[in-house]
């Protein structure tokens, strides 16, 4: 399911003395089955834009295409349920939204709201609990007796239970320990591939954007200012600086290596594994020459 934003502007508290514009003529396409990262400094409009992806916010001017639905400024959109089912948002600290007596009921709540039968919702909950890496016996526990990391996983299972085609992640690993961060990010990547999802990751982590995304969009002062593959985006350090961003640590380290060697490597490396392999390759070539 494609999502298209055309000339989208958004102002909070429009028509009041507190009016504050957050988006200015934003134009971009998110093609089906791609993994997009949206990065930008705090206050760049990332969180405002993500709420347009399932019509939680309507643009104050411009239009948003979500699959075959069109959301236009100034027109009340009816029956957005289908849109909300297809585009699942995992907000920051989603565990704050848990409320049911048991984990099972909490995960079933979303799908049953969208008309899924009780048996089907139960089946989904059972399957998802193991998918997000929790033991079966949590299903009958109160979500509030779980640890923070486990609660996060239950909340994520609740979004996945609606069987969305597009999944929007807003800083999904904030506050988790390093292993938890890696497990959650790897899980989303696996889901992205297995279920052919469209994934949109809103993040401060340049490392995650580099490792997982097909394409990166940079937001700056309410506008989308740059878009490209991670290798292209992270190549131009000067431009990133203008947007108050830094390349991932691995790219900064690559610059130090290049400085030491006196010549650049053949490509921008996006992960530690890639850089180690690239350095080994250069050394083999140098040895072969000498």
């Amino acid at each position: 399911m494609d999502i298209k934003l055309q000339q989208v502007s958004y102002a909070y508290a429009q028509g009041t003395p507190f009016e504050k514009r957050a988006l200015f003529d934003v134009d971009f396409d998110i093609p089906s089955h791609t993994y997009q990262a949206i990065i930008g400094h705090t206050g760049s409009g990332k969180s405002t834009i993500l709420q347009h992806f399932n019509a939680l916010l309507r643009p104050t001017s411009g239009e948003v295409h979500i699959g075959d639905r069109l959301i236009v400024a100034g027109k009340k959109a009816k029956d957005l349920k289908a849109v909300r089912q297809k585009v699942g948002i995992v907000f920051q600290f989603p565990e704050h939204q848990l409320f049911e007596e048991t984990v099972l009921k909490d995960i079933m709540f979303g799908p049953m709201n969208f008309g899924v039968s009780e048996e089907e919702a139960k089946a989904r909950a059972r399957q998802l609990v193991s998918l997000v890496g929790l033991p079966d016996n949590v299903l009958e526990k109160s979500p509030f007796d779980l640890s923070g990391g486990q609660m996060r996983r239950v909340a994520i299972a609740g979004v996945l239970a609606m069987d969305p085609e597009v999944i929007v992640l807003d800083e999904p690993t904030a506050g988790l320990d390093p292993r938890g961060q890696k497990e959650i990010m790897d899980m989303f990547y696996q889901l992205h591939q297995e279920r052919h999802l469209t994934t949109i990751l809103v993040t401060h982590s340049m490392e995650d954007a580099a490792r997982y995304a097909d394409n990166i969009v940079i937001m700056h002062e309410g506008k989308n200012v740059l878009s490209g593959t991670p290798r292209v985006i992270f190549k131009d350090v000067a431009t990133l600086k203008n947007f108050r961003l830094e390349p991932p640590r691995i790219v900064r380290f690559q610059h130090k290596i290049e400085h030491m060697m006196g010549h650049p490597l053949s490509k921008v490396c996006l992960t530690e594994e890639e850089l180690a392999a690239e350095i080994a390759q250069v050394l083999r070539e140098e040895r072969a020459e000498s």
Partner: protein
Amino acid sequence: MPEILSLNNVTFSYTPEDQNSRNAVDNVSFAVEEGEWIAIVGHNGSGKSTIAKLMNGLLFPQQGDVRVLREPLCEENLWESRSLMGMVFQNPDNQFVGATVQDDVAFALENNGIPFEDMVKRVHDALEQVKMNQFLDHEPHHLSGGQKQRVAIAGALALKPKLLILDEATSMLDPQGRAEVLQTVQTLRAETGLTVLSITHDLEEAMLADRVLFMNDGKKFAEGTPAEIFALGDKLVEFGLDLPFALKLSKLLQKEGVPLMGQHMSEEELVNDLWTSNFNK
């Protein structure tokens, strides 16, 4: 060095009546001495935050005791003990009470009955220490995350604490905000000799400390200098943490068959080794 705070064989369970449940903190002992920077690292649920709550008397241990300036912490000296410890929490948006930056820093002083003239000076001094004195009349919600945490640190400093406790204080910040806060703490330490205890799972933050406590499943698994702790290597990963960047890359390079003299903690050491072992030949 005089001891500021210590935990002595402290055990705490949230469900003491349940024999089968694991203790959140299990027989943990350590001491914080004046002028030190101690980091407590560990996975989610390893007992780090419970330790913080035990230190300032939000929780009391079932076994062992917590001593503040060598006095066991109890109901009678609770408030006095708390005033010696300034705490900065994880979420910068949850700890603001004042309508402006200076009101916010003044809040705790007012609660402690500090005279007005003294209060004004302390607020200004504290904000100057974190380099936020240009923002006296700003509204807190217009600040960046890093700026908010610096104001929170000023709020703690204004009370002239013996110990500054950072409970995952940088985990919700963007990379710039994190760097800003850590820089502020480093400068404070250099200028005032402030004692710092930071609870974190960011290993780069832990590397700044003099001493690191490594928690796993409620127990103290290891204690030592950052170099000693990071030498544990794969144990860190096994217990939910990660390897420091340069160490991870050293291992990957060696796996790729690149000869190195050792595994390195800092980027500079790794670059130097790569140069001497490989390129400068």
